[in-house]
């Protein structure tokens, strides 16, 4: 049977991808950011997941304002890196897992999560930067990836509670897949950041660290935090953090923290990162 063994949370700052792609990851500015992922790279190389369900948001790359799905699951064989205005990132094509993705789509919809099914979609930095942070610069990504795109650009995004409950439903869906697969769930985006207007550059380290604590120890309480608190305290783009609750919902109630990292700044953003293992895995 398929099983979810662990979850990874990470920011997906585009400048991190650009630093890696342009050979600047060893610069004084970027070295501490990448160093925060060294232990996680070793961990995931040992763990060897078969499939990653990667929760992220599209940033006006695959979805414009013509169509704004709240939750979309990528069921295609593969997904190309998106051209975000500078040409596509020089990273491998992302191989999907259509059989598990379709199984999830069916289970989730019958479990009353009305997913949008996507058969053609380019994936932007929201999805590829987390892969780069965990796997570096391989010829091909070492596992298959199911993109799960969440709208956090057009207000309102789904509530934290809805995200947490979707995580629980993802767990049920994966647990019922009959093939033996080792699955991880990534929750990406955040942490505190604001990219627009006179308040651009906002960082709130106390909020971020309290969020990291509560995501681990009391995700139910964190899932009840309303949008206004994220937008006010963590910046208008900090609301991406609700996506981490999807990852957390897919794990056991009690988890082991294998790694935790926090760093300011990466361009405009606070970088947060967690590796969480299911106790029974």
């Amino acid at each position, binding site marked *: 049977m398929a099983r979810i063994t662990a979850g990874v949370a990470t920011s997906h700052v*585009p*400048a991190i991808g650009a630093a890696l792609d342009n050979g600047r990851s060893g610069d004084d500015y970027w070295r501490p950011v990448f160093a925060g992922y060294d232990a996680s790279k070793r961990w995931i190389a040992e763990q060897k997941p078969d499939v990653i369900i990667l929760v992220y948001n599209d*940033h*006006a*790359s695959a979805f*414009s*304002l*013509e169509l704004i799905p709240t939750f979309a699951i990528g069921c295609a064989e593969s997904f190309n890196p998106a*051209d*975000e*205005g*500078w040409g596509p990132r020089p990273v491998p094509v992302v191989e999907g897992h259509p059989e598990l993705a379709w199984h999830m789509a069916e289970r989730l919809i019958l479990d009353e999560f009305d997913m949008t099914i996507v058969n053609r979609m380019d994936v932007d930095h929201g999805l590829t930067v987390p892969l780069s942070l965990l796997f570096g610069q391989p010829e091909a990504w070492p596992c298959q990836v199911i993109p799960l795109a969440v709208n956090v*650009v*057009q*207000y*309102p995004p789904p509530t934290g509670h809805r995200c947490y409950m979707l995580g629980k439903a993802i767990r049920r869906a994966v647990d019922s897949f009959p093939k033996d697969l080792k699955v991880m769930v990534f929750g990406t985006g955040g942490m*505190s950041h*604001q*990219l*627009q*207007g*006179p*308040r*651009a*550059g*906002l*960082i*709130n*380290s106390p*909020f971020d660290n309290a969020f990291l604590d509560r995501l681990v120890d009391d995700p139910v309480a964190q899932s009840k935090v309303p*949008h*206004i608190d994220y*937008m*006010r*305290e963590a*910046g*208008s*783009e900090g609301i991406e953090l609700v996506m981490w609750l999807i990852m957390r919902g897919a794990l056991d109630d009690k988890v082991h923290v294998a790694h935790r990292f926090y760093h*300011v*700044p990466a*361009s*405009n953003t*606070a970088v947060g990162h967690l590796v969480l293992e299911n106790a029974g895995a």
Partner: protein
Amino acid sequence: MTERDYHDIPGTVVFDGEQSRLGYHLNMFCMSLMQADNRATFKADERGYLARFPMGEDQRQAVLDRDWNRMIALGGNIYFTSKIAATDGLSFQQVAAIMSGVTQPAYAQMMLEGGRSIEGNRSKKGRAIG
């Protein structure tokens, strides 16, 4: 404008339904800049290219002026307007510096020192009270 709790957040425009309706054509113009040939056409004749999109004259002028805060006020969303910035060869951080009214080096230094503090930046009402 319908009263919302987030209108109290200083220096911030939340991209809600009202803003999205206002900015639809402005944002779809930005989206067109995802294609290299459109970027070239825009750069060759900005006003002519903008005329193809049924947006307001104030929105066109804000684009021509690269008035990033005005674009946001008129319904632009940062992930869309950043495509104009990319066309101009500007980074997110350069545009963030302009929007917050400081030079790029000053903005970069602020970020190195931990970013813009939340203290004093939570609430318009809170500010008024002191």
